[in-house]
């Protein structure tokens, strides 16, 4: 809401500097977002007296003047204005002055005569309109005195954020009321004596629910013309272009009282009637903006005896528009059901000052007074002769009365944390024009109709707190602490994973929750993959942001493509975030899983002098998952299987039969679809599935006896997998403490179709030092078993 300071001063005294006022209003809950100064922008203009004024020798229409502008000697100035006369007090733009339009004044020759300045008109100074002549000043000063900032009315415009609960502040009177409360000053509302009802006019309201109140006032002998300068100035200040006296007065009252007013050309109303009804199906209207619109019964209209002449509360129609030749008016001051106005406004895409206010609920008490205010102004500016009577409809007269709302003193203090007495509270509310009767424990507060936001006790508590001053509450700064907390292991799980990966050299990324709906296709997930279906946004910002992500992989590949400089070497990026899997059947909320996903690419370690740099590979990714699992105590409950999905080959880990992690090399077609250079390795873990805190490690005895180590090097067929051999050894061996594979070799001198593994087996007993011979026999037994199961033989060099 743009508010003119001059306009506000019509209703309340404001001596404060606009900056101070803005600060004080902001702290009072009226957030002033900007202050604009409307001071005229000329400079270098001084007071002068026309000493002589004669004809210009070379031009009939020009005068040659001698002007005292305090320069020691009179200046010679050529002037083209017809009204310049000797003896006038004028505004002189001397050399170097800059006028409103940016014109810089220089000495110059005009038709052969030297002109050392300019005698200014109001237009040239930007302080008003003129009738084609110079501005003749009506005050005295010494010649040469600066006039900068002194001509024209200075105004300031405050742009104030008005929250939806305060429609009463969408008016200058409403804001003035707050200023009066803030500074404890007297409010001077305009004279608002309503006219008497009972005019002879056909006013029909179809539904009192749709239109609780309608006041129609009447004006005859209308003379459409310009509105007075003072009104134009105020309207212009807040960004409204003056149109004519009738339209301007409706806009003025809208911005003064907050009540939208509409003026109809009474002679254009068929049957001399106003009917407020729902539109008929397919009914059409051409609105004031010249657009023909189709209506339906969900839209409330103002009609005459035949057809719609306005969309109620939104915009008038062209048929009954006020024209220059209009002679008679019907002035509408009404209230419409907010939701109906909102619906029509949205359906027709028509945002207007009127709809904005009706949607936030009009003040049902002000309609008749606002109509009277319009009539009074029309009479005052001689724009017409208002009828002394109005036609009035009120659905429920009780709604015009002040409401009484009870306010408990104890509850007020309980919410605010104060110790106010009933009288203190009453005094605070009184400043907001909220009178009350005080009892010992409670107040009965009388709420006028313009405060439609004050409905229940808590609304009054807020007003009490606001006037008392939020910053006067809780000054002791003591912390009340009746609760204790410790983050649960589940709470800490994602922090632990993040901390672990960071220590492992991963950089954390945070990408968008949105996903391009094309991504599942680019990832080559098949229909059976739950990631291929996503939650779709009905009103997305862009098509590429129209789905909720089902995986973090596409986002990370995007990070790799867009944000990793070509010279970056070790790429290790992870993200922990939610993915959204649609509910079965698509109804209801999706499942939200917390996943930790990482990509690895390019070099495995930094470029350093002591070792050759190595490209990262699949086992870097897999090893990170295994290390992380170890950190979370996972080993026995996890099984692993090879995968060869279209998006990449690798392994998948299962827990309780449920897949919960995978590591894979991203398939080449996927990389191409995401325009990423490969190879790229990836791992992806369902964080929710990592065990957290339910069980903690319990000490088990550590064997004091030394381990006995044996290396075992076997050759098997090239299709035998490490995982199976390991399972076989673990199943066979006694006292096996650890098994590590430290050499792996395929083909070459082993011959085609063969591979070899070298294991370091470590044996340890809790009961005593193992006998070397016994361990050797154990190894032989293992070897025999491996031979049986896999045809394994010892490798002999």
């Amino acid at each position: 809401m743009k508010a003119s300071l001059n306009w506000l001063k019509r209703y309340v005294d404001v001596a404060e500097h606009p900056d101070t006022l803005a600060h004080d209003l902001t702290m009072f809950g009226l957030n002033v977002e900007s202050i604009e100064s409307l001071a005229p922008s000329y400079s270098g203009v001084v007071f002068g007296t026309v000493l002589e004024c004669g004809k210009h020798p070379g031009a009939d229409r020009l005068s040659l003047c001698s002007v005292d502008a305090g320069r020691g000697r009179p200046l010679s100035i050529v002037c083209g204005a017809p009204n310049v006369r000797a003896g006038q007090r004028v505004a002189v733009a001397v050399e170097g002055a800059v006028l409103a339009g940016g014109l810089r004044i220089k000495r110059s020759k005009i038709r052969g005569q030297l002109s050392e300045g300019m005698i200014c008109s109001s237009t040239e100074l930007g302080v008003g309109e003129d009738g084609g002549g110079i501005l003749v000043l009506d005050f005295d000063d010494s010649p040469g005195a600066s006039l900068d900032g002194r001509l024209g009315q200075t105004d300031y415009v405050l742009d104030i954020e008005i929250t939806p609960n305060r429609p009463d502040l969408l008016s200058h009177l409403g804001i003035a009321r707050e200023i009066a409360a803030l500074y404890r000053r007297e409010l001077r509302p305009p004279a608002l004596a309503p006219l008497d009802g009972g005019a002879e006019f056909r006013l029909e309201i179809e539904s009192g629910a749709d239109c609780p109140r309608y006041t129609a006032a009447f004006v005859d002998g209308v003379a459409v013309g310009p509105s007075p300068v003072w009104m134009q100035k105020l309207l212009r200040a807040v960004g409204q272009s003056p149109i004519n006296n009738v339209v301007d007065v409706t806009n003025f009252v809208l911005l003064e009282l907050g009540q939208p007013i509409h003026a109809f050309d009474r002679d254009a109303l068929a049957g001399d009637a106003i009917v407020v009804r729902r539109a008929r199906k397919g009914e059409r209207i051409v609105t004031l903006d010249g657009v023909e619109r189709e209506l339906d019964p969900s839209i409330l209209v103002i009609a005459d005896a035949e057809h719609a002449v306005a969309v109620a509360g939104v915009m008038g129609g062209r048929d009954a528009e006020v024209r220059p030749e209009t002679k008679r008016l019907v002035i509408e001051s009404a209230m419409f059901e907010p939701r109906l106005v909102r619906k029509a406004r949205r359906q027709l895409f028509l945002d207007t000052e009127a709809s904005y206010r009706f949607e936030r609920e009009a003040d049902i008490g002000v309609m008749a007074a606002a109509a009277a205010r319009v009539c009074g102004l029309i009479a005052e500016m001689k724009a017409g002769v208002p009828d002394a009577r109005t036609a009035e409809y009120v659905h429920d007269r009780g709604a015009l009365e002040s409401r009484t709302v009870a306010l408990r003193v104890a509850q007020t203090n309980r919410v605010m944390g104060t110790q106010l007495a009933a009288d203190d509270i009453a005094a605070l509310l009184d400043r907001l024009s909220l009178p009350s009767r005080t009892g010992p424990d409670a107040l009965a507060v009388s709420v006028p109709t313009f405060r439609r936001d004050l409905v229940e006790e808590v609304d009054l508590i807020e007003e009490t707190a606001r006037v008392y001053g939020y910053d006067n509450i809780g000054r002791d700064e003591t912390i009340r602490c009746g609760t204790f907390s410790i983050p649960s292991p589940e709470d800490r799980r994602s922090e632990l994973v993040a901390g672990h990966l960071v220590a492992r050299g991963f950089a954390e990324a945070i990408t968008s929750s949105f996903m391009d709906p094309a991504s599942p296709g680019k990832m080559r997930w098949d229909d059976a993959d739950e990631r291929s279906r996503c939650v779709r946004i009905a009103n997305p910002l862009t098509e590429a942001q129209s789905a909720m992500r089902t995986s973090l992989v596409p986002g990370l590949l995007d990070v790799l493509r867009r944000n990793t400089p070509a010279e970056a070497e070790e790429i290790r990026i992870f993200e922990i975030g939610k993915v959204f899997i649609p509910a079965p059947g698509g109804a209801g909320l999706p499942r939200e899983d917390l996943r930790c996903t990482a990509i690895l690419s390019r070099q495995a370690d930094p470029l350093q002098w002591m070792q050759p740099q190595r490209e990262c590979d699949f086992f870097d990714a897999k090893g990170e998952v295994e290390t992380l699992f170890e950190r979370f105590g996972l080993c026995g409950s996890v099984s692993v299987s090879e995968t060869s999905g279209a998006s990449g080959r690798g392994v998948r880990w299962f827990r309780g039969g449920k897949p919960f992690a995978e590591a894979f090399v991203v398939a080449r077609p996927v990389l191409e679809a995401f325009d990423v250079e490969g190879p790229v390795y990836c791992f992806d873990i369902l964080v929710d599935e990592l065990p957290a805190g339910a069980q903690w490690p319990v000490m088990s005895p550590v064997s004091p006896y030394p381990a006995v180590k044996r290396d075992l090097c076997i050759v098997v067929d090239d299709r035998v997998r490490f995982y199976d051999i390991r399972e076989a050894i673990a199943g066979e061996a006694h006292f096996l403490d650890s098994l590590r594979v430290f050499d792996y070799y395929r083909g070459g001198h082993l011959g085609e179709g063969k591979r070899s593994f070298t294991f370091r087996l470590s044996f340890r007993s809790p009961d005593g030092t193992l006998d070397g011979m016994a361990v050797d026999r154990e190894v032989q037994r293992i070897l025999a078993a491996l031979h049986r199961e896999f045809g394994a033989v010892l490798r002999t060099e």
Partner: protein
Amino acid sequence: MSGPADRDGVREVARSAARAFAEAGDLAALEEARVRFLGRKGEITALLRSIGELPLEERPAFGETINDLKSEIEGLFESRRSALGANGAEEDHFSGDATLPGRRATAGGTHVLRRVVSEMKAIFFGMGYSLAEGPDVELDYYNFEALNFPVDHPSRDLQDTFYVNRDILLRTQTSPVQVRYMERHRPPIRIIVPGRVYRNETPDPSHAAEFLQMEGLYVDRNVSLADLRNDIAFFARSFFGADAKVRFRPHFFPFTEPSAEVDMSCFSCGGSGCAICGRTGWIEIMGAGMVHPHVFRYAGYDPDAYTGFAFGIGIERTAMLKYGIDDIRRLLGNDLRFLGQFWSEAAPEVAR
């Protein structure tokens, strides 16, 4: 008396042997030195031979001295040989230059937003707040209706919303967790809810379509606006520094009343006014207020029995203030060079 046979001469041999062994840079040089002292024609042998020049009664004592010397030199030799190591060269732990850079691991780090959230959590945990969470894809009921945003009311225009369908939307605030949590717990409740929220706004330097928020909620008997002010003031001092001050401006949120926007004294100018704070000396950091009785009713609490406060902090905005970040879009840009600036524990020193 002078000559090799005196005791000073024996000490001199020991010293020169020690010197020679130490100077031997490899096994060959050491062997050379060994031969010089312990060889058949070496200095020990020469000393033993000189025994004949001594009077008879001094010979046994001198012989003993020479034997001691011999075992001392043998000891020196052994220790030097083992020092030279298996490959025979002197063990060099530094490749000859200890100023070479050490072996480094790839550097990683958390995202600056996680850092901010973690710092905030730590502060609120210390104040007795626990962690709670809720879904990003949320029911209209929890995001709006139960938070006292009536259907078809202009208050819904305050937040541009992404919809999935008529009933399901992307939460525009973390506040829906208030009702979800209250439905399942009894007071006292003191929680924080960090999470991502969504607004259908075209991104610009200070607005993003998705951002993080941290909700706070405290419900108990007689929780007051004064308690809210004090908690927020304590948080601001803990997070931004001991000089940070807060002020409360009355505002409107449908789900709190009284409601406030909270400003913090400008960290840059300290309150005198600068470009960062728009010359006001204050910067808005959160919205807050007392839980509206309607919200309590939706959650099944008796508004006469309990009061409470709630607040919502914008994480990105706070991160931008604390770390001087000029454009919110950088925080989702994932430029590693940008993110890497916030990995160190303190402001990095400027490398010479």
